[in-house]
């Protein structure tokens, strides 16, 4: 966690902040989803409570808290109550490992009559050297909460929804994992921070002795791995059970799928879990393919130099530069979240066999081919 009290305290506060950021983004996303879906469907959406209907969030929260406590007959009590909590955990843990801005360097300073040495704080919950493997591992636990809910509810619709969801998650995890392999080969690291560092500047690479350089395109992963980007993004839709892959809760045939028996705050926890998966996916898309917190056309150094003029100390300048890059990251992040919402209200749901065909017969072979081609190209380029 850190070498001394100061670093440990800051790191703990950071963990809480990242968690709160995730949880607090959910009401805003719900509002955005309801308003956005309304505009896509040529309606108005919630617009009566407060300005632009923003107070609807508070009304929703009160409604969630005051709903009747309900336990279905024939359910398994432990699993029924454990499932919503378990739904929150994987997304939270995974989201904490996503880097949101440039590391902040704090120079030595004096406080409470003691000297506190130089620190480097990462703009994320915690820094892990094998970030990708960790995130994939943790989010693969997400299916358990759905299965626990499906079994614990003692309801046929719930169980069918849970089985569909688990089959879908297992199938798409393969394509998801394989699509990332190309990225890992390209950057030669599992560390998300190093990946972002490799995407700085303008598009430039060496191939067969030629140096290719672009004058305006940023050095983003999507220009090297466009196929991986498409497959990864589609697979994350399936992982977070969003339309067009939300067969787990297909209203037309399963009432509401695995969360039929859940109401009030328990239902909200499932919601937060789903949005958390979306946020992890959006964060990973930004990190892998869109340069993370880097600003296209502007280097970190120039931002830092500008911040030095604005702030008094080097630590302050580093913090200010970090804040600016965090805002840039947030914009990219928000764009992907909006794409999630836009797709949900634009595309119809797949049929079950179409879903499996897409996962196993289309995305998996393409991801595998992408991996092999990337490996061959890298071998040629490096030799």
């Amino acid at each position, binding site marked *: 966690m850190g070498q001394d009290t100061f670093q440990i305290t800051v790191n703990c506060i950071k963990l809480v902040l990242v968690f709160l950021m995730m949880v607090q983004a959910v009401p805003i996303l719900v509002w955005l989803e309801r308003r956005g879906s309304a505009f896509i469907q040529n309606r108005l959406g919630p617009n009566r409570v407060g300005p632009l209907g923003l107070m609807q969030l508070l009304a929703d929260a009160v409604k969630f808290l005051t709903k009747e406590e309900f336990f279905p007959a024939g359910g398994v009590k432990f699993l029924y109550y454990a499932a919503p909590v378990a739904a929150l955990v994987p997304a939270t843990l995974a989201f904490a490992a996503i880097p949101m801005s440039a590391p902040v360097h704090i120079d030595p300073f004096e406080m409470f009559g003691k000297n506190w040495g130089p620190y480097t704080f990462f703009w994320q919950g915690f820094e892990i*050297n*094998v970030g990708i493997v*960790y995130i994939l*591992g*943790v989010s*693969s636990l997400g299916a*358990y909460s759905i299965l626990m809910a499906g079994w614990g509810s003692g309801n046929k619709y719930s169980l069918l929804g849970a*089985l569909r969801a688990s*089959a879908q998650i297992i199938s798409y995890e393969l394509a998801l994992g394989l699509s990332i392999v190309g990225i890992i080969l390209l950057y030669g690291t599992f560390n998300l921070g190093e990946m972002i560092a490799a995407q700085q500047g303008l598009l430039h690479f060496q191939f067969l002795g030629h140096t290719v350089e672009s004058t305006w395109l940023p050095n983003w992963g999507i220009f090297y791995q466009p196929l991986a980007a498409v497959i990864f993004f589609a697979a994350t839709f399936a992982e977070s059970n969003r339309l067009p892959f939300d067969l787990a809760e297909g209203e037309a045939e399963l009432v509401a799928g695995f969360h039929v028996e859940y109401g009030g705050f328990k239902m909200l926890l499932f919601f937060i879990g789903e949005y958390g998966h979306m946020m992890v996916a959006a964060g990973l898309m930004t990190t892998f393919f869109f340069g993370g917190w880097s600003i296209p056309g502007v280097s970190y150094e120039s931002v830092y130099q500008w911040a030095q003029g604005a702030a008094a100390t080097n630590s302050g300048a580093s913090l200010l530069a970090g804040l600016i890059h965090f805002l840039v990251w947030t914009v990219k992040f928000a764009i992907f979240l909006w794409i999630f919402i836009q797709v949900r209200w634009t595309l119809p749901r797949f049929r079950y066999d179409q879903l499996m065909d897409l996962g196993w017969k289309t995305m998996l072979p393409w991801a595998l081919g992408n991996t092999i081609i990337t490996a061959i190209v890298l071998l040629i380029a490096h030799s």
Partner: protein
Amino acid sequence: MSTDAILFWILAFMTVSSALTVVLITNPIYCALSLALTMVGVSALFVTLNAYFLAGVQMIVYAGAVLVLFVMVLMLFDLKHELQAFTRGKMTGALKLASIGLLAGLIAGAILMSNGILLTKSEAFTSPDMASDTTKQLGHLIFSQYLFGFEALGVLLMVVAVGAVALSRSKGGTHAKS
């Protein structure tokens, strides 16, 4: 006790108790869930040993595999019937005895072979630069020194998968009219 030791004992207790639950509890659902918990515990133990990559892979591969098991339990087992079939009869008694013998042999073998392993500290894995990049080290070892074992394991797993499909097909699979 240092924090590392406390962490280790908590994790070890969690892992071992959930592993015992897998064996001792009769409800297959809870068995599968505690098996998943065991896997998570083992991967957390890997983290305390600084083997982050192994921990992640443990989580992805084994937690995912247990998920498949869970689904199998839910879909294919007639829970009450299976319970009786597994707790009565001479055949299962013999199987139980055989597995006890196997387990005892495994434990005895492990104790005999690991004797002294923890006492001699190998210098190779304690240097800081190796600890920081164990993933690369692991990759190099798997694809050079242990290549044969690695590939053989892959073939073995393939055979197991194909064999399982073939066996289930030969008896009518999930649509068997027993």
